[in-house]
């Protein structure tokens, strides 16, 4: 599935882009491709959650074409 991956905060800066287009069939596959692409981001990726279409979603979540997957590192608003 062709999915759009959104990156924020320190993850965004580690990758140097705020979005990536990947081909993946689950959230876990997105995580795996991100770890391979930027090993230095792995510790923060390990502490991050994922959102599919703007809702938190577990690793085994299946993806559909055009889904928006976002990496959500620990939040710090307020």
């Amino acid at each position: 599935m062709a999915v759009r991956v959104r990156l924020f905060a320190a993850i965004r800066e580690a990758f140097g882009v705020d979005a990536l287009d990947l081909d993946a069939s689950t959230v876990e596959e997105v995580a795996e491709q991100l770890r391979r692409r930027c090993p230095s981001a792995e510790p923060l990726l390990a502490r991050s959650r994922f959102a599919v279409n703007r809702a938190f979603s577990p690793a085994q979540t299946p993806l559909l074409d055009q889904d928006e997957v976002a990496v959500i590192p620990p939040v710090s608003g307020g």
Partner: protein
Amino acid sequence: MNCDRIQICPEPFSWATGELTDPAAGALAVFLGCTRAERAADGRDLLALQYEAYEPMALRQMHDLATAARRRWPIARLIMLHRVGRVELGEPSVLIAVSTPHRNEAFEACRWLIDSLKAEVAVWKKEIWSDGTESWVHGEKP
């Protein structure tokens, strides 16, 4: 239908007590979070905070929090605002305001909303220091 104001604001926000007043509301509680001056152990001073949001998700989460708060407390009016962009020392980055019939529920709802927002909503802050360094905050500061 309610008239909650829930926004992600790229510019300094303004609000007025009048947005919250309602004949049914005897109590208004307001919380503002601001950039607080800080000095690091090595002598650097904090200059400002830079906020970034995953805006559509953050707005959805804020609306969900408002809905949950309304189920739990008899809220007349509610405002929830969060800045993005650079927020200087002393300037507000977040505002939570609720009005309710009595004061206990106003304090409880206001406190629950800010605690939940800080724990869950897709917003991040970066510290900008006087020596030019910058650092993202990911997880509770010590």
